[in-house]
């Protein structure tokens, strides 16, 4: 039931004791504001890691070759190692459960021209699986398929920027470009989030490039896409097992770090990031909890003080016929009202500060700091309830005070 008179009493009490109301409200504003900001910043840090992680890892590891750094099995030091097609097939066969995609690559820069426009582009021979390793998005046409590999088709898939460089506003699909004096047909155009340089690559069937470039089955690298459900530790183990298989197959010393290499630095980094993210996730609730506790303590203190300050008033009201219930409700509702309004204010201030300073925080690795409004809402409600309890206990005690004791308290 809405008791207008009771609310009138409460508003009068707040209005006439503004300092008191502002002081107690300030604690709440501050607690909720801090809660929001800290939470937002922690979320921002987490967002940053999430984004970097997504950008850089496609569940793919690249295996490179180098020269041997140790003599082994009668071979001299300094021997250049090459992968061949059968290396890729062998790896895929050895780890059928862990590897999802595999592709050999062979890359070289060629001059490419269309009509009077030309440029030098990196042309990469790849297997069909490569589409899933690089997360290239096909905009038009299609990607390389198995038939292209088999037929050594003179087909290419060009990046979005290659299309705009060479074809301007024209569509490249189905057109022929000139590569080393031979016509290659554009069968697809792709885009890639990885940045401009990623969109200036031209993909062609691996076998086509092998024939053009080396004339045999040599590969530049082998790219392995592992199952996404592998943990970082499992992935590191997988990489090491692949490495030793490749070393064994190519007669490389097991402890040779140079001849067979992999892009596994990203994995150790990812592990570090995962750890950091995990500690953030642990830290965030602790921060939140701490701020809330501070807020609750603040309100409790103020409520105890307020009730003490109003002891005499309570005594007067009781002498005039106020029931204990009416005493408790007037104090409690006042607290709840102040906490609700100021809690909301703190939320608004906190969120606007986050919005205001958010963009400028990007160089401190804080990306898009924001809060889950429902979390802050819950926090405010917790604070209101805590304030209510903090107010209720002294109010209840005050309502039990014999008016004569309260009145003696001058």
């Amino acid at each position, binding site marked *: 039931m809405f008791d207008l008179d009771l609310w009138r*009493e409460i508003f009068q009490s707040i209005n006439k*004791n503004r300092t008191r109301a502002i002081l107690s409200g300030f604690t709440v504003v501050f607690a909720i504001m801090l809660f929001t900001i800290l939470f937002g910043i922690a979320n921002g840090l987490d967002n940053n890691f999430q984004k970097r992680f997504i950008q850089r890892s496609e569940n793919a590891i690249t295996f490179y070759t180098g020269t041997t750094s140790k003599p082994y099995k009668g071979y001299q030091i300094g021997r250049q190692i090459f992968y061949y097609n059968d290396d890729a097939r062998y790896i895929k066969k050895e780890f059928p459960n862990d590897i999802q995609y595999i592709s050999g690559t062979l890359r070289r820069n060629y001059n490419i021209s269309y009509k009077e426009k030309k440029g030098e582009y990196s042309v990469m021979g790849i297997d069909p699986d490569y589409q899933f390793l690089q997360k290239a998005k096909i905009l038009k046409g299609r990607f390389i398929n198995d038939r292209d590999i088999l037929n050594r088709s003179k087909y290419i898939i060009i990046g979005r920027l290659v299309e705009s460089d060479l074809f301007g506003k024209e569509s490249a699909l189905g057109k022929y470009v000139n590569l080393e004096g031979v016509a290659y047909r554009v069968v697809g155009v792709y885009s890639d989030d990885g940045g401009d340089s990623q969109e200036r690559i031209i993909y062609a069937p691996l076998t086509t490039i092998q024939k053009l470039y080396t004339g045999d089955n040599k590969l530049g690298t082998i790219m392995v896409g592992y199952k996404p459900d592998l943990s970082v530790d499992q992935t590191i183990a997988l990489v090491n097992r692949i490495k030793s298989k490749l070393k064994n197959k190519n007669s490389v010393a097991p402890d040779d770090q140079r001849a067979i290499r992999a892009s596994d630095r990203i994995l150790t980094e990812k592990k570090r990031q995962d750890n950091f993210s995990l500690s953030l996730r642990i830290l965030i609730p602790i921060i939140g909890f701490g701020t809330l506790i501070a807020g609750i303590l603040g309100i409790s203190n103020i409520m105890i003080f307020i009730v003490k300050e109003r002891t005499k008033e309570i*005594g*007067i*009201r009781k002498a*005039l016929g106020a029931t204990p219930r009416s005493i408790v409700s007037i104090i409690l509702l006042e607290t709840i009202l102040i906490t609700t309004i100021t809690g909301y204010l703190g939320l608004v201030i906190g969120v606007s500060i986050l919005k205001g300073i958010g963009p400028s925080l990007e160089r401190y690795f804080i990306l898009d700091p924001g809060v889950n409004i429902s979390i802050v809402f819950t926090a405010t409600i917790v604070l209101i309830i805590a304030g209510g309890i903090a107010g209720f206990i002294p109010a209840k005690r005050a309502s039990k005070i*014999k008016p004569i004791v309260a009145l003696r308290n*001058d």
Partner: protein
Amino acid sequence: MLEITNLHKSYPIGDSSLHVLKGINLSVKEGEMVAIMGSSGSGKSTLLNIIGMLDEADSGSYILDGLPIKNLTEKKAALYRNKFLGFIFQSFNLINYKSALENVALPLYYQGMNRKERQEKAMFHLEKVGLADWATHLPKELSGGQNQRVAIARALAANPKLLLADEPTGAVDSKTSYEIMDFIQQLNDEGKTILMVTHEDDIAHMCKRIVNLKDGVILEDAVIEQVRAKQHV
């Protein structure tokens, strides 16, 4: 109106206890104006507080207007205080952030009266104590005598059967105290039963009966010739 028999009250002080009221017997009829006198520590304030249901007796009986006042719940005590009693305190005990009118209206608020009616009634009582023009003023903007008159108006607002005054003239100068006594006498003339604690002899003699308390017992209980406060004003 008021019937007290063999009332005892003691306060614990550390391990021992202080026996303040040692068997009080007092009967007050409607329309009386009684002064309770005694030196400090005689138990006069304790007696008034028990009568005012601000405090509770250890033993003995207290019947107010036919109702036994014993083991009251807080809620019931609040109801009885509101219905039967009007308080006038030495230090006025007005709520400092409320205007004179709002202070007077407060007991009516606890009676559950609606706002409009409350204010009309409060205004009527303020007029009665001659402070209609000061209705919107806060206690701090009023003199001691004016504040006590506001307090009297407040005590009257709920139309109580019994008016209890604890040293009503203790905080004001003698001229003002005679003015206040004049008011109280007028109220008595209109039929209000009044019980007053005072240690001032001249104030006590403005009542119709003096009960003298000493060390927790009634030493003397005599009906006197009332001195009218009007002649001092």
